[in-house]
């Protein structure tokens, strides 16, 4: 017999197997020790056909006499019609060596797991018939607001807008002071107390937007590569101060790029306090 590799077999297979067992039981009681597979299958098939035939004709006899539920007489008629004699049935029932097969265990129906269920389903109203499907989860049809009612008072809105504007400005200036170049308010090297955003105008101002450049991770390294690539020992000196970029990317063909940066800073340092006052 082909072994079923699945754990759960279909209902028809299980019943067929039980019929197989029943036939084997009968054969054992008769005196056989083994049976051919084909003959076992033949007898099982006969048994199944027997049940079907008896059920069919008993149902027919029952309906013939105008009833719906079959009765002993219908079954007897069906059996006799098939040619099965009922004479020795009692003796057969009382035979000594009979085995009883265990009825098949009821497999529990796999419960579909309640997925994504939020809350319990509401009871249907009494005017709804009971055979209709249950109500869906309450979140599917109950409306709850997602946010509070916003304040529409003029004063509150003006105040909110003003505080937001101030917060944005403050945060942005702090960010620029920490990330970009800064001027020092006092004449010290320490830049932490009052950093001012460096104001380095370039001419033209739209030039860095027009020239696309890669992101620079390390300015010193970039300058080194740039210098190595563009050595200008024999270049005319008028090209040195041409490019002054506040980002410091295109430092020009200078041998002392750091000094030039400091020069630029010093020249603009005088004017920066007045400018930064307005922006600080």
């Amino acid at each position: 017999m082909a072994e079923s590799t699945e754990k759960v077999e279909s209902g028809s297979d299980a019943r067929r197997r039980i019929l197989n067992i029943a036939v084997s039981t009968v054969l054992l009681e008769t005196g056989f020790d083994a049976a051919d597979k084909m003959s076992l299958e033949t007898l099982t098939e006969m048994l199944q056909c027997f049940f079907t035939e008896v059920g069919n004709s008993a149902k027919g006899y029952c309906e013939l006499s105008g009833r719906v539920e079959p009765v002993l007489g219908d079954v007897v008629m069906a059996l006799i019609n098939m040619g099965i004699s009922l004479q020795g049935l009692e003796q057969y029932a009382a035979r000594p060596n009979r085995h009883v097969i265990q009825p098949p265990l009821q497999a529990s129906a796999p419960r579909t797991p309640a997925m994504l269920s939020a809350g319990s389903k509401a009871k249907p109203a009494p005017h709804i018939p009971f055979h209709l499907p249950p109500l869906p989860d309450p979140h599917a049809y109950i409306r709850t607001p997602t946010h509070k009612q916003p304040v529409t008072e003029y004063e509150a809105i003006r105040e909110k807008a003003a505080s937001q504007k101030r917060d944005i400005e403050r945060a942005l200036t702090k960010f620029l002071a920490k990330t970009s170049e800064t001027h020092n308010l006092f004449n010290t090297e320490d830049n932490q107390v009052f950093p001012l955003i460096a104001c380095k105008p370039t001419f033209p101002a739209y030039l860095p937007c027009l020239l696309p450049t890669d992101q620079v991770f390390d300015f010193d390294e970039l300058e080194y590569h740039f210098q190595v690539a563009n050595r200008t020992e024999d270049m005319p000196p008028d090209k040195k101060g041409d490019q002054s970029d506040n980002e410091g990317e295109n430092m020009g063909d200078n041998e002392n790029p750091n000094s030039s940066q400091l020069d630029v800073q010093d020249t603009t340092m005088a004017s920066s306090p007045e400018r930064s006052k307005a922006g600080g």
Partner: protein
Amino acid sequence: MIIETVPLSRMGSPSVIEDDAGAGHALSDFLLQLENYSPSIPDSVVAHYLNASGFESQDPRLIRLIALASQKFLSDIANDALQHCKMRTSSQITQSSKNQKGPKEKKYVMSMDDLAPALQEYGIVARKPHYFV
């Protein structure tokens, strides 16, 4: 539960009616005996096959009766097949000179050769297929 004993033939002669009525009574008595009897085939399996052909009964005794009848049917066929098998093996043993297999150690294996003639007596023709489709 009221058991109806339907007379098997109302148009027959009085003697026949009595016989049939007697048989009907016997069967209804037997039905009472079936209350505690459990045949080899489980009730649920038999009920399923009967339901599949339209026969639904709330009375488990009817189902047990049918199960018992089917069992008896099968055992009759099996008995006939056993007879055929014994005839064949006894003829084989008398043909062979070895006497190792005594009558006690005989193992009967049912094959289609025994089953086919047994079924033929019942009018069922079981033919072996030439090939598997």
